[in-house]
């Protein structure tokens, strides 16, 4: 099995390559290619999963690796490889499955787009890169795929590049993540310099295994940090960038400019989770440290804090957004924060569990949002939607399931169990109680804003006719791919309609999964955690009723209900007929609402900082120009004038002569200086020649001297 | 005796060289071979002109030249006298030096090119290690001469003709060289002598010439077509298409210079045909094993005459192409097939000998040919004729 693991990413890659060659017309071909490749990949990864299952159940994690030398220069040999362990297997299945569904969905969603084939080419490329990332056993390969994923994300966010906002968002996403990746790369380099290998597992020689670990832990660097801590912090920076943790979260909401399937696949389910997966993958590195603050290592503490802060931060913002997809985006950010918390406090299993469940129901939510947008003619502003549950029942039902799962509706939905795991872990976390409270607050907010959104979109009566912003008009035209003139302008748009079955089918499947998945990780039967940790799972109802578990569960349940109730009380009771009225929250705390609506002014702050820097720099240059150079010239001319003045009292000729002379000199000097910079190639070439001569002479003399 | 007869020229040359003092011997031998080549091929040129004119005449249902000498075979003599005695016109606006140099730059390289063609057993004037490359390298100089002729005689027709000719030569040089490459792949050598030696053996009576293999046959055909285009023979004689641009790049030439151009054209034809013989038709080897006794150079020249006959026949038969058709033919038809042919040669090289190899390679050659021809034919809608110059 392990031998053929590389086939899994190979199929989508092939599909991408082939559909890159496809003509614009050959839509069926491209789509079929992509979906077929995903099917094959899914089948293979199920086999892989089976293999992992057969391996599991014993004590300790069973792990097959396959490494091969890539190239060697001098005596250094770089080798790549792939690994099959429960972590990989789970991720593989998740990515393939969700990916497949979203592929199918986007056949319906992109049906009218003229660049259909390009879209599928990018999607398949993304899938290939993601799968490669998941099963890579070498930090180098991991990084390559990581960058590939980033690239495809960039391409897909800017898919409708003729929208300025889209291209801007794409650039923003790319650059912001680069900041993190720089640190990541530094971390890799450091790790390599310390251990001399980038393979995770290499029969004892890998950088995550005993020998390397002991080495890394003992070696300490600058401010009392052990090498392992430093490296893991650097790697974590990469994770922060990729999965939109504070302070690098700004790109994720803007990324919603891309087509909705992209938002679902890349910016909700898989890619942004890659950061979390990275932390999970190199967890030993994070967890290994001598001087941990009672149990939790420095690195993990950082992870926890960043995660919890992000969770609440993003959740608060989400309560005040009005764009359907932005709300989901912020909730994604906050959920990622939850996952980080889980990793930081509860270990791999907890974080990963939430990752998997979240992948499903967040994908579901996004696809639901997509079908809403699709059905309402590209309208994204929740204040302009409403009452859709009559028009698109299936979407409503599935969306409600997803929303309940996300806000963690007790006992029935997967979100509840995974989030509860995290809270439980936080409850037991010894070093500080704050993450626990933050988590609770986050859960509360999650329930609240999801309720708000659902009430806005699906209840009340349809406000679609009133609110047709020019922006959405453009979006509609852009999406239809027609120039605005020949596009059939509708003053009163036709009623929203249910999406085609091609789009609804995936919704239903995802909905089912986002209910069922939860039961694989209940405290009663923690099969998932056991599978990841490689211990046999046993069923015991009793564990469900331990005081600690029960108390946390009760608490979170209460919080969730509080959130739901609050949402209903503020938005559900009296939905405003037309979207003039201010937001209910705005009525209560206008200032706070404004603050949240503008996302804590984070963008503005960044902008101010960067622009300010440039402005100051420019000022400096300007000052230099104005005073130093210009001053010199001024001085010269002043001197000349002085001379002239002196000369006036002498002979007339001397005046004229001196004056003219001086002016000529000045002009000559100016010309001399400017000749260095005339655009003539030959002068540059000449200067090069002189430089060559001088250099050679220096060298010769150097040799003579030596 | 047959041995003697076969080697007679070689022996004669050695004997002559031996007379000279030692430090002169290399030059002497070079001189002798050069003289021999020039003599032989110049006379062949004379013969060919008559043959061509008579042949064309017969094809067009008229007598060719038949007044001067027996059956008009002294016609070239008369023509030679005429051209030599004609006034040598140079236009006033012309660039005298270049105008003067152009014919020389054409004639010298083509004679040089003949030097690497083995005319018989041990009868290659120079046997350099990379003779084929030499041939093509020298052949490249002709384009320059064409340009010089066209540009120097300040005449828009001649410039036009030169441009056409250069474009045509460049485009057809690619398939020419590519189809020669297959042979190089097989013999693993660029030396013409070695290439001929590689086709020496016989299977039963039949020779082992490359033309008798699928790839060799395809290569030979491609090579002939490209050769015709390289030496501006019809149907590729647009550069001197009388009906459009009176005589192409040598409108402004007359008298001896014109004769030189004429000579150069024909010698180029001989050279490229000789190369075709060397590459595909087994050089100077006898076509059947039991005919081995007959002197090798006779075989060579027999084959040469056959090829020239083919060229004459083609000239008499086919109409002239149009410029765009010409280019399309070069780039859309010849080039792909030449590339494919290389692939076929590779397959042939690495498949075990036997009928399967034959069948596979033949299919590989024929199938794409048919398909490509079909596609191009369907594509070729007779549309409005468009000109693109500069």
């Amino acid at each position, binding site marked *: 099995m392990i031998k053929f693991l590389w086939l899994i990413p190979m199929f989508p890659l092939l599909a991408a390559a082939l559909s890159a060659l496809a003509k614009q017309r050959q839509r069926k071909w491209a789509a079929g290619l992509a979906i077929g490749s995903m099917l094959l990949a899914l089948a293979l990864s199920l086999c892989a999963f089976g293999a992992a299952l057969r391996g599991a159940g014993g004590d300790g994690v069973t792990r097959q690796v396959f490494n091969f030398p890539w190239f060697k220069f001098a005596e250094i040999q770089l080798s790549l490889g792939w690994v099959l362990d429960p972590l990989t297997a789970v991720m593989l299945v998740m990515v393939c499955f969700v990916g497949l569904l979203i592929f199918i969905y986007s056949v319906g969603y992109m049906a009218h787009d003229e660049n259909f084939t390009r879209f599928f080419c990018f999607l398949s490329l993304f899938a290939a890169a993601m799968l490669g990332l998941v099963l890579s056993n070498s930090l180098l390969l991991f990084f390559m795929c990581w960058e590939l994923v980033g690239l495809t994300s960039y391409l897909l966010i800017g898919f409708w590049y003729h929208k300025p906002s889209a291209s801007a968002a794409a650039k923003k996403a790319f650059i912001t993540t680069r900041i993190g990746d720089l640190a990541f790369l530094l971390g890799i380099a450091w790790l390599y310099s310390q251990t001399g290998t980038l393979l995770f597992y290499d029969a004892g020689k890998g950088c995550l295994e005993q020998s390397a670990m002991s080495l890394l832990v003992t070696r300490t660097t600058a401010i009392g940090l052990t090498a392992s801590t430093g490296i893991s912090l650097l790697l974590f920076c990469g994770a922060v960038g990729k999965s939109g943790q504070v302070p690098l979260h700004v790109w994720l909401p803007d990324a919603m400019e891309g087509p909705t399937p992209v938002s679902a696949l890349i910016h909700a389910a898989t890619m942004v989770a890659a950061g979390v997966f990275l932390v999970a993958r190199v967890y030993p590195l994070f967890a290994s440290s001598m001087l941990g603050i009672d149990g939790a290592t420095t690195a993990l503490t950082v992870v926890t804090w960043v995660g919890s802060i992000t969770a609440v931060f993003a959740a608060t913002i989400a309560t005040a957004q009005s764009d359907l997809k932005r709300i989901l985006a912020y909730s994604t950010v906050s959920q990622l924060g939850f996952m980080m918390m889980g990793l930081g406090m509860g270990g791999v299993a907890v974080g990963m569990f939430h990752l998997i469940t979240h992948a499903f129901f967040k994908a579901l939510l996004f696809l639901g949002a997509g079908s809403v947008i699709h059905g309402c003619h590209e309208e994204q502003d929740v204040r302009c939607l409403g009452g859709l549950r009559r028009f698109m029942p299936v979407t409503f039902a599935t969306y409600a399931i997803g929303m309940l799962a996300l806000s963690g509706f007790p006992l029935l939905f997967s979100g509840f169990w995974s989030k509860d795991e995290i809270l439980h872990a936080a409850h037991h976390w010894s070093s500080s109680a704050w993450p626990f409270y933050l988590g609770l607050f986050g859960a509360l907010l999650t329930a609240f804003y999801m309720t708000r959104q659902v009430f806005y979109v699906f209840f009340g009566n349809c406000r679609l006719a009133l609110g047709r912003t020019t922006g959405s008009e453009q979006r509609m035209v852009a999406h239809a791919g027609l120039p605005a003139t020949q596009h059939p302008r509708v003053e009163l748009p036709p009623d929203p309609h249910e999406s085609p079955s091609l789009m609804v089918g995936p919704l239903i499947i995802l909905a089912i999964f986002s209910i069922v998945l939860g039961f694989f990780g209940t405290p009663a039967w923690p099969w998932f955690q056991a599978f990841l940790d490689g211990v046999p799972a046993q069923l015991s109802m009793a564990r469900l009723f331990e005081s600690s578990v029960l108390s946390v569960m009760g608490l979170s349940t209460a919080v969730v209900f509080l959130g739901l109730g609050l949402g209903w009380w503020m938005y559900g009771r009296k939905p405003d007929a037309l979207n003039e009225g201010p937001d209910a929250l705005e009525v209560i705390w206008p200032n706070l609402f404004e603050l949240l609506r503008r996302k804590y002014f984070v963008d503005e702050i960044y902008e101010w900082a960067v622009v300010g820097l440039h402005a100051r720099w420019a000022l400096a240059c300007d000052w230099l120009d104005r005073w130093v150079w210009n001053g010199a010239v001024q001085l010269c001319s002043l001197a000349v004038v002085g001379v002239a003045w002196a000369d006036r009292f002498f002979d007339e000729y001397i005046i004229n002569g001196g004056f003219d002379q001086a002016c000529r000199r000045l002009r000559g000097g100016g010309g001399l200086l400017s000749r260095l910079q005339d655009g003539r190639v030959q002068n540059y070439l000449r200067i090069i020649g002189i430089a060559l001569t001088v250099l050679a002479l220096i060298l010769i003399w150097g040799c003579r001297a030596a | 005796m047959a041995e003697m007869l076969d080697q007679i020229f070689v022996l004669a040359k050695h004997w002559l060289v031996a007379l000279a003092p030692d430090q002169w011997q290399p030059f002497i031998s070079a001189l002798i071979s050069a003289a021999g080549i020039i003599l032989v091929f110049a006379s062949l040129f004379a013969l060919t002109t008559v043959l061509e004119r008579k042949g064309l005449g017969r094809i067009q249902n008229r007598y060719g030249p038949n007044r001067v000498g027996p059956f008009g075979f002294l016609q070239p003599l008369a023509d030679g006298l005429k051209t030599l005695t004609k006034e040598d016109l140079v236009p006033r606006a012309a*660039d005298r030096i270049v105008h003067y140099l152009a014919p020389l730059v054409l004639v010298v390289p083509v004679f040089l090119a003949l030097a690497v063609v083995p005319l018989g057993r041990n009868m290659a004037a120079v046997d350099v*290690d990379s003779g084929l490359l030499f041939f093509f390298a020298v052949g490249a*100089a002709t384009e320059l001469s064409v340009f010089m002729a066209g*540009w120097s005689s300040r005449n828009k027709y001649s410039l036009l003709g030169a441009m056409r000719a*250069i474009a045509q030569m460049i485009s057809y040089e690619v398939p020419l060289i590519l189809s020669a490459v297959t042979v190089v792949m097989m013999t693993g*050598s660029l030396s013409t002598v070695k290439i001929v030696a590689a086709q020496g053996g016989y299977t039963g009576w039949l020779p082992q010439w490359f033309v008798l293999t699928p790839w060799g046959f395809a290569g030979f055909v491609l090579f002939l077509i490209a050769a015709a285009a390289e030496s501006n023979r019809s149907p590729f004689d647009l550069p001197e298409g009388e009906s459009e641009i009176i005589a192409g790049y040598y409108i402004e030439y007359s008298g001896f210079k014109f004769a030189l151009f004429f000579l150069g054209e024909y010698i180029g034809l001989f050279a490229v045909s000789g190369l075709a013989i060397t590459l595909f038709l087994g050089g100077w080897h006898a076509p059947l094993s039991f005919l081995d006794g007959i002197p090798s150079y006779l075989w060579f020249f027999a084959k040469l005459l056959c090829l020239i006959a083919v060229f004459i026949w083609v000239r008499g038969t086919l109409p002239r192409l149009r410029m765009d058709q010409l280019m399309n033919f070069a780039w859309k038809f010849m080039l792909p097939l030449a590339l494919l042919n290389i692939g076929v040669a590779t397959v042939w090289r690495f498949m075990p000998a036997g009928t399967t190899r034959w069948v596979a390679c033949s299919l590989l050659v024929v199938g794409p040919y048919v398909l490509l021809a079909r596609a191009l034919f369907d594509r070729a809608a007779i549309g409005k004729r468009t000109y693109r110059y500069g």
Partner: protein
Amino acid sequence: MSIFIILAALTVAGAVSALSLRNLVHCALALTVAFVGLAGLYLQLGAQFVGFAQILVYIGAVAILVVFAILLTRGSEPPRQPIFSPGWLGGAVVAAVVFSLLTGMVLSSEAVTREIPPLPQATVASLGEGFMTRYILPLEVLGLLLTAALIGAVIIALKEPRESP
């Protein structure tokens, strides 16, 4: 030695006239003369393949390209204004300095005193083997480069669209 002197004279003469003649076409033709001379030098140095390749590439391709470019840029008739750029004196001086420097270095190096080894053999076969085994990567890269150059040249030289902003 005499052959060398002849070839060198040919080459230098060709080069000088290629860069000093007034009519661009003459320059191009003189350039080909210089190339021929260089090819001869290569042959005399025993590098047969390179010599022929030189002829094939430079005379068969580059010279023709140059000529075409000259005709396309209407350079074929001699220019009205002086052919030398204003700062030609400085350029000449720089060139002279570079030449004297190089020559000085060469003559002061131990190349003067080196004895002449026997003529080495560079058969085409060995060369080809080298290309296919040891220098395979450069070869591939070169192929890539040539392709890129081809496409790039075509794209650059395409006609500008009429309604250029």
